């Protein structure tokens, strides 16, 4: 295998595995046949074409299921990442609940909604009781202080209503998904977002505020919603908008509990997520430039 072939093979990883298995060798054949003799580095325009083609193939591969049910699964996954991220910095104090929260997320990622449901119910009750200053199942020293990633006590700036509302939303959604018996599966990379979302991030807002926001979280959420807007644009599909809208409901429930404490930064954050969700909902219905687009 030449150096150029090895490099083009690496570039083909932008395509989904199924596409690579079916057509990877065919693309590689054409890439090598069109390369100038003696070339060892892939041409820049070919690299750009492979990245764009690979991303489009991945987006198309994700649009073979029902968009509304898959959008529901996507939204629940995003909320459950946030729920697991809420527990992660306190693993030393509440290891069982962090593990259960991660197990519920993993079950949903593998499409096992009925297994996830009791795990969500249990962690939801525990989260509610901690935020309400009560005890459930095991004695927990309150407030729960973090071991890593943040300096805020667990659920310090969250109301019991907002905590329970998101868990109820997830539970209802899981019951709906379980009733269809259709297993939606997502990439294990979603687990990698848990620590990223848990990190309080660089100094941005006054930590003594009633409801401080994390800059790193804002950037991550905006990046994911931006990817959803782009995917919706390419595939003309509303599933990413539905997923974003569900996540926005969870964020808005939280924001609504702090209406009197909101600063311009809060409103900017809320507005940004709202605008990007609206954009994700609008782009699938954009006018076609060409009939064959």
């Amino acid at each position, binding site marked *: 295998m030449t150096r150029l072939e090895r490099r083009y093979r690496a570039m083909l990883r932008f395509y989904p595995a199924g596409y690579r298995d079916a057509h990877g060798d065919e*693309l590689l*054949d054409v890439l090598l046949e069109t390369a100038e003799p003696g070339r060892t580095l892939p041409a820049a325009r*070919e690299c750009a074409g*492979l990245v764009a083609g690979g991303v489009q193939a991945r987006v198309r591969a994700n649009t073979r299921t029902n968009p509304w049910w898959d959008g529901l699964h996507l939204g629940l996954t995003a909320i459950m990442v946030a729920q697991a991220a809420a527990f992660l910095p306190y693993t030393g104090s509440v290891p069982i609940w962090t593990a259960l929260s991660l197990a519920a997320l993993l079950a949903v990622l593998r499409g096992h909604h009925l297994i996830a449901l009791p795990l969500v119910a249990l962690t939801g009750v525990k989260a509610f009781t901690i935020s309400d200053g009560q005890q459930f199942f095991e004695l927990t020293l309150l407030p729960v202080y973090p071991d890593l990633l943040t300096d805020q006590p667990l659920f310090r700036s969250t109301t019991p209503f907002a905590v329970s509302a998101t868990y109820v939303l997830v539970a209802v959604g899981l019951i709906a998904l379980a009733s269809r018996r259709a297993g939606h599966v997502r990439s294990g990379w979603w687990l990698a977002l848990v620590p990223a979302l848990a990190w309080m991030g660089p100094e941005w807002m006054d930590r003594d505020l009633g409801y401080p926001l994390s800059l790193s979280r804002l950037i991550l959420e905006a990046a994911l919603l931006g990817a959803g807007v782009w995917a919706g644009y390419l595939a003309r599909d509303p599933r990413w908008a539905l997923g974003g809208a569900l996540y926005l409901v969870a964020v808005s429930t939280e924001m609504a509990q702090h209406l009197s404490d909101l600063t311009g930064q809060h409103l900017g954050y809320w507005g940004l997520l709202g605008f990007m969700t609206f954009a994700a909902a609008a782009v699938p219905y954009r006018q076609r*430039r*060409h*009939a064959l*687009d």
Partner: protein
Amino acid sequence: MPRDAAAMSEQTYYVLAALLDGPLHGHAILKRVAALTHDRVVLAVGTLYGALDRLAAHGVIVVEREEVVNGRRRRYFRITPEGSGLVAAEARRMQQAAALVTSRTLGAICAF
């Protein structure tokens, strides 16, 4: 689609035009498009296969057959009657659009 807008992009037009003479595989399509346009349109491989997948999904081309060359599969694409109709309609539209200008400029040159 907006009224009077092109039914297809320039790249799509030339890919379909390349297939009018018969089924071709990916590399041959690239060479035919470059030859038809005197090297003005040179498609990247990823771009070509993205277009071929999209056109196949629209039913304007189909995979005619597969061959194995040097141990690698190679698909031959054929334009469908619907695809031929679309590319012919696009050619007429461009011809009419060009005539709007050429009839006047040629008229002005002749009046000289």
